[in-house]
């Protein structure tokens, strides 16, 4: 029986409901939090409903099942525009969104990162800004998020056992004077919260079949539905948001599973479609009153797109590693995550183990490559260890999501074009990370080192950033848009800066905080 079978349903002309667009970390959490407070919510999710039993232990087949493959285009000098011109992002189109695919790393943003502009100072070419909230503002919500997600090494949740890939990273880390452990992961190390412990399958990216990894798919969404205040509508692709003459949003137009256009009225709309679809929706909702798109009086919608400064270091050894066995992100080093401009860049980066199966190593190790150096790496696949670098990339006004009116999707809507140029700071940080990663692996006997370029992005941030002053961004510290009081941004699009940390924990924490705020505003009849 599907979780939607006996759920409470709401009429299309029920204008008292909150409509949440997207069911991932932001949307799924917000919807449940609102429902728990007795607020009626309709969740519109573009993707289909899969259960854990549907997940596939097969990289390409799973990719075809879960990934967002609707057309997108790219421009700019980043390498993805050449290698994967129609796949700038590796995110999920199914119920649960990218919480189905994420690896589970749950790191708090460091206090100084909330004040990036004040801490780093002005950086040429960058559009740095302090967040309109502080670490202390979000800290209580981090605590609640860690509690509900079962993050290891918090709330007495034990650290996950380290796999072979971790052992290599750990030993190298010690040689470099780094600290390293199995991290803060939203993956059960013991049976907890009605979910299994981690069986070390190694298919974290393909959907966690045991449910050991937190995903809104089997936590927030069914719990919200159980309150009788949440209706989840899968395969509901939102096309635009409507508003009335006073400038308040009133309804959401979407295409249902049969491709029929539907109109759901709403008291309030929260958009959580990930940082490419969220601005696309606001831009596609342009009207005579909002000719540049909703909440875009500042011309900031779509700008400051961030994707983290990433890259991978793979190393081969004389003896087997079998990196693909066990959790994908099995070890974390945070010693380079601090801010130290003496390294030649502002901000910092995390080092996290990563493993790809043979099919995906072939696809992503060095896209477009051929010949003996490339095949030599694959010949040593069994003896390979890997790490992912994830660091702060700087917001730039020209890195942006715009509508490509020359290319339309299956509903005839202009697709998102993603433009991205690396900032010199990003390049310097990536080179530093490559060097440190290589040195780490060489210290434990690495034979060959391979520097892999960024993958299609799973960490898509910015594009509707929160700002104190309306002219600097799109929404305030609660995700409420500066221009339209009953329109909220509820995903990673809100991020003012990208910070070094994997974003999901912060997205969840912001969603919990936002739900509290929305409930207050509704009670006070302000929205």
């Amino acid at each position: 029986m599907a979780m939607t079978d006996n759920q409470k349903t709401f009429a299309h002309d029920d204008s008292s409901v909150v409509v949440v667009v997207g069911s991932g970390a932001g949307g799924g959490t917000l919807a449940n939090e609102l429902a728990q407070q007795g607020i009626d919510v309709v969740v519109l999710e573009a993707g289909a409903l899969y259960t854990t039993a549907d997940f596939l232990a097969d990289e390409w087949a799973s990719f075809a099942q879960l990934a967002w493959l609707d057309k997108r285009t790219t421009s700019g000098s980043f390498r993805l525009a050449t290698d994967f011109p129609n796949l700038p992002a590796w995110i999920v189109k199914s119920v649960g969104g990218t919480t189905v695919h994420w690896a589970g790393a749950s790191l708090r943003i460091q206090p100084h990162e909330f004040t990036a502009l004040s801490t780093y100072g002005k950086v040429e070419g960058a559009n740095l800004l302090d967040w309109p909230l502080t670490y202390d503002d979000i800290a209580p919500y981090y605590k609640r998020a860690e509690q509900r997600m079962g993050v290891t090494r918090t709330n007495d949740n034990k650290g996950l056992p380290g796999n072979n890939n971790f052992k290599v990273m750990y030993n190298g880390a010690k040689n470099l004077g780094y600290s390293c452990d199995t991290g803060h992961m939203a993956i059960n190390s013991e049976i907890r919260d009605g979910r299994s412990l981690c069986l070390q399958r190694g298919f974290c990216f393909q959907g966690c079949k045991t449910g050991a990894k937190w995903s809104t798919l089997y936590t927030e969404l069914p719990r919200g539905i159980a309150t009788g205040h949440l209706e989840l509508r899968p395969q509901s692709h939102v096309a635009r948001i409507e508003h009335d003459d006073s400038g308040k949003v009133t309804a959401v137009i979407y295409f249902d599973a049969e491709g029929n256009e539907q109109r759901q009225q709403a008291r309030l709309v929260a958009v959580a479609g990930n940082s490419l679809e969220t601005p696309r929706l606001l831009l596609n909702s342009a009207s005579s009153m909002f000719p540049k798109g909703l909440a875009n009086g500042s011309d900031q919608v779509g700008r400051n797109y961030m994707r983290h400064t990433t890259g991978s270091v793979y190393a081969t050894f004389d003896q087997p590693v079998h990196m693909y066995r066990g959790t994908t992100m099995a070890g974390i080093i945070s010693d380079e995550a601090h801010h130290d401009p003496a390294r030649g860049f502002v901000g910092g980066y995390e080092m996290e183990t990563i493993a790809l199966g043979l099919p995906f190593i072939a696809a992503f190790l060095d896209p477009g490559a051929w010949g003996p150096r490339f095949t030599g790496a694959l010949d040593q696949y069994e003896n390979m260890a890997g790490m992912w670098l994830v660091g702060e990339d700087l917001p730039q006004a020209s890195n942006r999501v715009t509508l490509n009116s020359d290319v339309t999707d299956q509903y005839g809507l202009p697709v998102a074009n993603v433009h991205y140029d690396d900032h010199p700071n990003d390049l310097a940080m990536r080179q530093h990370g490559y060097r440190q990663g290589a040195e780490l692996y060489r210290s434990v006997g690495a034979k060959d080192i391979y520097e892999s370029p960024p993958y299609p992005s799973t960490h898509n941030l910015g594009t509707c950033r929160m700002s104190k002053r309306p002219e600097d961004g799109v929404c305030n510290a609660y995700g409420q848009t500066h221009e339209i009081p009953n329109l909220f941004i509820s995903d990673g699009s809100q991020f003012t800066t990208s910070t070094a940390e994997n974003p999901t924990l912060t997205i969840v924490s912001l969603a919990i905080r936002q739900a509290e705020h929305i409930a207050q505003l509704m009670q006070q009849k302000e929205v």
Partner: protein
Amino acid sequence: MSIPYLSRRVFLKAGGGFLAGTLVFVNGPIALLAPSHSWAMPLDSLSSRQGEVLLAVTRQIFPHPKLEDAVYAHVVKSLDRKAAGGTLGKVLADGIVKLDAASGGDWLSLDDNKKLEVLTPMAGSLFFESIRSDAVVSLYDNSLAFTHFGYQGAEGDEGYLNKGFNDLTWLPNPPQPDAGYLPF
């Protein structure tokens, strides 16, 4: 010229070939699993010779000296499937004609170094990219390749918790609490 020069029209009509071979590495992991050391793969739209050329081209693009032709044949099969009815068939046929022309008639008869020398200037061409972009998926996404390269694929579905997720012994075991805790 060692073989009759075939026109493109003949190539296009020459579908329905097949590829066949014998496993070379009789003590290799694939041979140990294979029911027979001989293999054959029927082709629907490509001729046998086109299949042989494409297999040899793939060996140049992704050279794994110890990888059986039987695994490379997955790429030919994938191209054969895609070539049916589409424009790819013509791209492949034209490319093979070019390779042969640049080889004095028969690219397949060249030694390995010469083969690469003739192929390399075609890197980036539609012909080359069609093969490379297919092969980077089809060569490495099959159970024979998994066996050869040491990837356990869907075996992981049951979980490695009791099957070697932490069996590496050539480095010291990290201590607790950093290394975390087994659940049992």
